[in-house]
């Protein structure tokens, strides 16, 4: 019995894996096509202010693999990606892969931390209002969630910086890396909180969790659980909390990464977002390509993890094949 139960789950999971791989392939095509269509030579920025000889131009073309037809270019680029070769930055000349790993970790701290902050605020509000129904506190909390999600995150950042300078005497604009002397977590805390509150997903997370929890609370099987004197929370946990939580987190990863671009700019945080901003200004193609790929990969991996949880938790998942999770 146990063995027979495992097989559909493995099947469902391998289907998800294949889907993720196909989507990442699509992502690489999109990124490539956008940059392939770009006007002008990608390296003209690099040679700005010089008038290179014809030979030099051809040599650089050769080095960048430009003269090949587009599909050959794509395949060699993709082959490079798969071997971890993302090219070298046009601005710094460093290999992009190493740079990505370095900034990727900084952004990972920032996004995971801020996700935690968002959830610490959203979950209690959602649970409270779904279990207790409309109470006096409900309306102000709702309004607050609306206000916060409409707040421009950069301005929120300024307010936070101002308060930290004038109230606590801490200047949070020194990047985490260079502030080796002081307590680094203090510098990290402020941007994390600002992104956690201001990433614009707060009110949607509250709403989604509350809707799902309220929907589950009136299910027949919850009534059965109450009738037999069992813990309602334990019976409602999987469908009412775990599944919607993972769904909404996976769905909101892109938004938080987008918010990170701005918060990193405000706080001078040495992450992917700041690097993307720099690369967009310099038209540093290998870097921006690498960042786009990495960001998309995060989104897909988040989504994959959500599916893994869903399939593991829901005995019906391997049979019914629910549409790939989008929180609506």
């Amino acid at each position, binding site marked *: 019995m146990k063995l027979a139960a495992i097989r559909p789950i493995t099947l469902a999971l391998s289907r998800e894996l294949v889907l993720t791989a196909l989507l990442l392939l699509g992502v690489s095509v999109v990124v490539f096509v956008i940059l392939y269509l770009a006007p002008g030579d990608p390296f003209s920025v690099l040679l700005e202010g010089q008038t290179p000889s014809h030979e030099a131009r051809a040599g650089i073309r050769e080095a960048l693999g430009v003269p090949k037809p587009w599909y050959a270019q794509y395949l060699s680029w993709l082959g490079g990606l798969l071997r971890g070769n993302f090219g070298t930055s046009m601005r710094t000349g460093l290999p992009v892969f190493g740079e990505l790993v370095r900034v990727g970790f900084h952004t990972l701290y920032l996004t995971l931390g801020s996700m935690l902050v968002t959830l610490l605020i959203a979950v209690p509000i959602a649970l409270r209002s779904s279990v207790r129904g409309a109470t006096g506190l409900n309306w102000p909390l709702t309004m607050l969630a609306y206000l916060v999600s409409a707040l421009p995150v950069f301005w929120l950042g300024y307010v936070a910086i101002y308060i930290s300078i004038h109230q606590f005497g801490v200047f949070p604009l020194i990047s985490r890396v260079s502030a080796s002397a002081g307590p680094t977590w203090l510098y990290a805390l402020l941007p994390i909180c600002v992104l956690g509150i201001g990433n614009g997903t707060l009110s949607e997370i509250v709403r989604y969790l509350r809707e799902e929890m309220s929907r589950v609370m009136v299910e027949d099987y919850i009534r059965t659980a109450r009738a037999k004197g069992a813990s309602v929370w334990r019976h409602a946990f999987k469908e009412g909390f775990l599944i919607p939580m993972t769904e909404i987190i996976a769905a909101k990863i*892109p938004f938080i990464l987008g918010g990170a671009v701005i918060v990193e700019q405000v706080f001078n945080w040495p992450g992917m977002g700041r690097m993307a901003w720099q690369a967009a200004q310099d038209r540093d193609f290998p870097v921006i*390509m690498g960042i786009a790929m990495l960001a998309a990969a995060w989104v897909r991996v988040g989504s994959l993890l959500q599916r893994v949880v869903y399939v593991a938790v829901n005995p019906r998942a391997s049979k019914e094949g629910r549409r790939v999770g989008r929180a609506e």
Partner: protein
Amino acid sequence: MKHYVQVASEAGESSDRPVWKDADTLDLAYVGYGLLIVTLVLVSYVLGAFKWLPYDPEYIRVDLLNAPPGSAGHLLGTDFLGRDILSRLIVSIQAYFLPGLIAIVISLVLGTGLGTAAAYRGGKVEVLVTYFNNLVDSFPRLVLILLVIAAFKPDIYYIMVVVGVTGVPVCASLVAGKIRFLRQKNFIEAAHVLGLPTHVIVLKHILWHHCTPLLVIQATLGMGEAILIETSLSYLGFGVQEPTPSWGNMVQAGANYFFQGKFWPSTAPALAILSTILGFHLLGDGLNSILEGKRGT
């Protein structure tokens, strides 16, 4: 002769009572505030287009820097170059309005098309549309925009095309969900049995009669998104360039003075962003609750 009542009726849809009679007071307040903001945006757009402004938004007054609101005829004060903030706020709408509309049109047209195709044809088309939606959703919007900026140039129309395309999946899945719901009620099949041509069914009976509220709501929310993206980009320095004002670059320009305790030049545009985005969100959610019977936050 026997009359059949239309089967596909949803809450409140089939009755002749105007919808707002049954609506929640709170939802009406949301919609009221949202409509006020929409009106303000439209009026500001017209004022800016005809240059009916209290001051020239780019006129520099060295004698009156960072003036507080209400001083010397400047209703909302002046910025770090002594330029009138009110005029600059009004003119900023120019930067959002048309590009925002373009983004919305792209989202709605593409989204409706894909959503209809997916739900109507099903099978392979549906798989492809789902793939497309997931593909677009894989990119953080701002990262995709930075990619396009790097590849092309920081042009607001390119950017709004990206915003439009990234808005497609939400719209497509909402429309597809709606059509699936209608299919369950068999009334599309009934229309086929009656011999109506497919395009009439899709355009008139499905999209016009049942999806209009949904599309209006999406348009509203989409406008809010477009404004938020534009302000973010202006803040990052890729949107509207100084001296032409936009809310994003106004916040950014005021930032240095913010830390010196001169909050206003940066806060005024931030409040404009806040109240406008809030207006579009509340309008969308209020309409959603009233027209579609879905409870918002």
